[in-house]
Structures are given as structure tokens and as C-alpha cells.
């Protein structure tokens, strides 16, 4: 009967081409608007590391007191050097890492080529295991390398292609900011979006993946420049030396701890409170301990990673889609009720109400499918205009893939079928006796 209903549905659609075209266009425009905005929203709102987002925690410690809190009662979003190093040395979490943004110049292998700038992070060995960074060649450096302030580096496969033509470069040297580092690993393409681990620096939607990673301690030794955000709170400060700056209460080092269980997290928070209390006792902090421990999803929510224009445009387009569906309901109702006579005849000849439902829902599904196919074309065309609605970094993330195409079709068909419930219910209520008597 499926094929029979489909055949009847298609035949019915051909009978009223104008009405059919109106319904198909309503569905197509509605679904396309929703899919275009959803294509952005799904990227910016997605969980970048769902399998362990509840185990990775951003650490915050209030190092400058309530008068500088913004928002109120919230500690700075990154740590200063003193606290970051202290927490690393305390090593109270199974894994922990700290990082800061770097942008060193890279000397190409060919002396005739100009140097390039590679962006990345000065960090610690646990960074790679905590954030599940995949490797093409080699492996991360070790904790011993951290302790030894080793001149080792991990580079991305993109940088590896530029420098070494994609060959296995493990063991070779790379010159970063005039210093030589031995390559210990080459990552596979790795660029989780949003870039949750560096939301502090506003890098959530930075278009290119990080290209280079070096040992934090070594970077500090060499005073490798920081390209990220530095927030010292209060009035502008002037530092006579890097050393002075390092030991002031300036937030510039995002700090993460891997805490597999809730008990671990609770225990770590107790440790943080104790650490802050100790700083208070030592006279460094003049306020009660104020610390935060937020997992990835909590951290992204706190940082409002999802751009408000993405959320608003999604709501608006869904509203538009609902209006399109309401119009479709009206058109389907008109179309179905014009066929009361046919329904009466079919019921008289043995069709059950369920069979009437099936026939008309199938017809609606055919409308939805046609709307979905047209909607796909409109979605593809509309993706070119995403840049008009969103920031370039965000707009660049929107892309068409199989899941978007399938979702477009499924949403179009399902929503049209749902929209057809009421018209179909009305159609199934046609009393054959009255209908036939009235003829």
C-alpha cells in the first residue's frame, strides 16, 4: 500500500501545481533558513570533546581581590605565573596543564625562503593526553622534558608539510624565534571547535589550528613572547623587566586539570581553597579564598562561547519555519477538504480511517520531500551568504556535509508530516454517509 499511497500522493500534487508549488516553496524556504542558521549554531554550540568534557576543569583563583572582579565575585579567568607554577608543582590532579599563546617566527629549511609566523602554545606534556591530541608521527614530550626545560617541540602536520614536505620530521630540528628545538612529534589535523581550552584568549573560533607547541618552562626561560590576553586588573601598569611582570598578579595562563570523578573534582576544589587560604595567611591575598572549577561545558557556558547572533538567528529562522508550516497546514487543509467526496467514496468502498490517514500523510510526506530537495538547493545557495549574518571567523566554520543534507531532508519530511496531522485528522473525520448523501 506504501507504493499505492505514494502514487496517489504524487498524482494529487500534480493535479494542483500552483497549490503544490506554494506548499513546496513554503517548506523549502523555511527549512533552508533553519538549516543555514543551524549549520552555524551546531558548530559554535557543539561539545568539542563530549567523551571527557565532564572530566576536564578550568581552574580559577582570585589573585587580586573583589574590587577588580568582573563580573562581581568571579575570579580572573586565567592564572598568574606564580599561581600557575605553584599548582603545577603541587600536582594534585592526575593530569594538569597550563598554556599561553605564542607566535614565534619559524625559519624555513630552505635558507632562500622567508621566515613564517607559526601560532601555537607554550604548554606542558599533559596537554596532549588531556585534550586527546592525535599524532601523525612521534609522540608528545614527557613530564621529564617539562622538568628539564627541554628544547623540544611538537608541530602540526600542516606546518610539517610546509617545512618538511610532510615527511616524518621527528628528530629533526626546527628554529623558532631564533632558538632551535628538536621535533618529538607531529600532530594529525586537530582543531576542536570551539577551542575551549583557550577561550580565555578569545580563540574559540580562530580559523587555523595551532601549529607549534613548546615546553612552557623552556618558553619562560627564553622569554618567548606571549601573543594572547594579559589582564593585570586595575589601572595600567608599567614593568621594568619581564621578571617583574612574571611575578605580578596578571592573568595570562589558562590552567586545566583532568579530574575523572566528581570526588576528584571535589577533592581538587578543597585543595584550591586551601591553597588560596594559605596565600591569605601568607599575606599575599587580602580576601577570603575565591576559587572556581568549571568543566568544559560549564566553562563554555560561562564564557558565553555561543555568539548571541547565532542563537537569535536560529530562533528567528525557526520562527519563520513555523510560520511556513502554519501556512502549509492551511494549504493542506484546503487541499484535503476539497477532496471530501473522494474520501467519502474511499471510506464507502472499504478504506478504514487509518488508511485515509496513511494516504494523506504520505501525500504530505511527498510535499515535504519536494520541499526538502528544494530546501537543500536553497541551503547550499544560502551558505554563501552566511558571512552577512555572522563574524567572519564564525561564518567560516559553517559548512555543508552529509549530516546537514540528511537533516535538511528529514526535517522537511517530518515537520510536514507533523503539520499534516490536523488536516489529515479532519479528512479522516469525513462521514461517508453525509458526503454521499450530499452528492
Amino acid at each position: 500500500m506504501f507504493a499505492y499511497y505514494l502514487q496517489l500522493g504524487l498524482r494529487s500534487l500534480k493535479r494542483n501545481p500552483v497549490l503544490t508549488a506554494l506548499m513546496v516553496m513554503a517548506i523549502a524556504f523555511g527549512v533552508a533558513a533553519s538549516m543555514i542558521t543551524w549549520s552555524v549554531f551546531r558548530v559554535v554550540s557543539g561539545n568539542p570533546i563530549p567523551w571527557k568534557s565532564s572530566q576536564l576543569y578550568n581552574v580559577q583563583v582570585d589573585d587580586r581581590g573583589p574590587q577588580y572582579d568582573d563580573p562581581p565575585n568571579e575570579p580572573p579567568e586565567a592564572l598568574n605565573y606564580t599561581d600557575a607554577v605553584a599548582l603545577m608543582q603541587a600536582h594534585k590532579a592526575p593530569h594538569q596543564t597550563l598554556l599561553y599563546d605564542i607566535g614565534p617566527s619559524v625559519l624555513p629549511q630552505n635558507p632562500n625562503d622567508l621566515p613564517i609566523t607559526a601560532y601555537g602554545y607554550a604548554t606542558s606534556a599533559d596537554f596532549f593526553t588531556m585534550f586527546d591530541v592525535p599524532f601523525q608521527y612521534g609522540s608528545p614530550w614527557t613530564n621529564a622534558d617539562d622538568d628539564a626545560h627541554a628544547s623540544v617541540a611538537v608541530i602540526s602536520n600542516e606546518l610539517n608539510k610546509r617545512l618538511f614536505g610532510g615527511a616524518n620530521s621527528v628528530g629533526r630540528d626546527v628554529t623558532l624565534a631564533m632558538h632551535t628545538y628538536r621535533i618529538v612529534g607531529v600532530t594529525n589535523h586537530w582543531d576542536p571547535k570551539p577551542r575551549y581550552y583557550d577561550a580565555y584568549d578569545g580563540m574559540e573560533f580562530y580559523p587555523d589550528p595551532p601549529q607549534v607547541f613548546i615546553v612552557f618552562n623552556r618558553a619562560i626561560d627564553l622569554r618567548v613572547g606571549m601573543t594572547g590576553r594579559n589582564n593585570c586588573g586595575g589601572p595600567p601598569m608599567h614593568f621594568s623587566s619581564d621578571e617583574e611582570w612574571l611575578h605580578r598578579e596578571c592573568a595570562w595562563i589558562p590552567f586545566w586539570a583532568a579530574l575523572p570523578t566528581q570526588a576528584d573534582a571535589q577533592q581538587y576544589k578543597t585543595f584550591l581553597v586551601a591553597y588560596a587560604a594559605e596565600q591569605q595567611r601568607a599575606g599575599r591575598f587580602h580576601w577570603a579564598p575565591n576559587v572556581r572549577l568549571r568543566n568544559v561545558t560549564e566553562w563554555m557556558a560561562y564564557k558565553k562561547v555561543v555568539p548571541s547572533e547565532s542563537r537569535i538567528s536560529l530562533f528567528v529562522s525557526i520562527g519563520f519555519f513555523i510560520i511556513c508550516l502554519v501556512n502549509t497546514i492551511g494549504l493542506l487543509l484546503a487541499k484535503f477538504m476539497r477532496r471530501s467526496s473522494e474520501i467519502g467514496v474511499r471510506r464507502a468502498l472499504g478504506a478504514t480511517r487509518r488508511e485515509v490517514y496513511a494516504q494523506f500523510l504520505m501525500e504530505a510526506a511527498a510535499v515535504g520531500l519536494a520541499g526538502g530537495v528544494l530546501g537543500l538547493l536553497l541551503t547550499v545557495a544560502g551558505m554563501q551568504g552566511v558571512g552577512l549574518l555572522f563574524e567572519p571567523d564564525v561564518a567560516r566554520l559553517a559548512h555543508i556535509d552529509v549530516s546537514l543534507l540528511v537533516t535538511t531532508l528529514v526535517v522537511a519530511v517530518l515537520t510536514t508530516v507533523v503539520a499534516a496531522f490536523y488536516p489529515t485528522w479532519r479528512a479522516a473525520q469525513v462521514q461517508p454517509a453525509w458526503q454521499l448523501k450530499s452528492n
Partner: protein
Amino acid sequence: MLKMTHLSKVYRTEVVETYALRDFNIDVKEGEFVAVTGPSGSGKTTFLTIAGLLETFTGGTYHLDNLDVSNLDDNARSKIRNEKIGFIFQAFNLIPDLNVFDNVEVPLRYRGMKAPERKERIMGALERVGLASRAKHYPAELSGGQQQRVAIARALAGSPRLLLADEPTGNLDTQMARGVMELLEEIHRDGATIVMVTHDPELAARAQRNVHIIDGQVVDLAEDPRFHTAYAAAAGQVRG
């Protein structure tokens, strides 16, 4: 075949109750050709829709093919309509989007019949009404008489036990009406049970038995003066 006992049908609104059928009794034997006559508004069509399980009734009992159909649910009624009853309507009630073949196919589809058997039955029914060559035509391309023949073919294709006809010639000219009537007689001769509602005394006279309805009740012609008045009026309308 069809037995209604003390059957009633009441249409109720908030302020009024209208009896369409009242203490209605009829017994149609298998193989009979019964004409149901009566003036407009007497309850003929209501009787036919109840007989065809298109409408429920308010009181009494109704046995169809020895089955009490009083309390069947909608699905069961649909199944019986599909398998045991064939309908012929005054307005033909063909589906305009479907060609002749597809129109005749409709009840067979709901029976879940396989395609080869459907085709055999459809072509057999169309040959019987003389329209096999018009299988691919659409209703709008046929005359009224031909459309009614298609409707008869649709009713016959499912080999129903009971054929219910509501003014089958009401929309046809005399010549076409004669052809349709001859076809019904032929179908009856082949063993079908036919109940035909008609205003036309001439058509009624060609049935084996006439049942007369006035004010929702079956009446005896000889004893009920209301019939004579109504009958005369109906005959006058037909002649006019």
C-alpha cells in the same frame, strides 16, 4: 441476507429529535432484487446508508449475512463494506483523478489483493459492463451512462454478496437508464442480492419485490393511505 428488526435512527440536536427511521423492519433474502420506494425525505437513503454500514443506527438490530453488525467498530464495518457490499450511487462517485481501471481497482486495493488478481477482476468487471476498451479513460471522458457502468463494474469487481444502489438511474437519460437497469437485472440473474432505492415506479416495477417507506417506516401499500398520496406525487414528478 439483510434483516433489520425494530430499527430506529434518530438525529438529535439540542432542541429537537428527528426520527429518520422508526420501528423499521425489513428482511431481504439472498438472491432477491428489492426496490425501495417512497417520497423524498421518507428515509430511503438513510435506510440504504445504514444497510451499507456507512452510518450507525440508534436502536433495534441489524443482521447482515447472519452477522449482527449492531456493535461493530469502524474497522470491522470498513472490512465488511469492502468484502460484502457493493455500492452504486446516483452521482456515480467516481474519483476524477483516477482512470477507469484505477477507479475499479479502489476496493480491491483495500482488500490487499495481489496485482495479477486485481487486474483479472478489474478487466472481468469492465468486460461485463462493456467498457474494457475504456480502461485508460478518465471519468470526464465518459458519458453519464458509461460512468455509471464503471461504478457498477467497481461494485462488481469485489464480488460482493449485496449490491446497494441509490437511484442508480437518477442522473441518466431514458436510454442510458434502460441500459443500466438491464445490466442490474443481468447481475441479479447471475445470483446477486440487490437492494435499489428509487423514485421511479417504472424501475421499481422491474424488481422482484417492492418495499415502501413513508415517514421512516415500511408500510403496507394496500392499507396505508399515505402511500397513495405520496406515490401519486412521485409518479407525477417522474412523468413531468
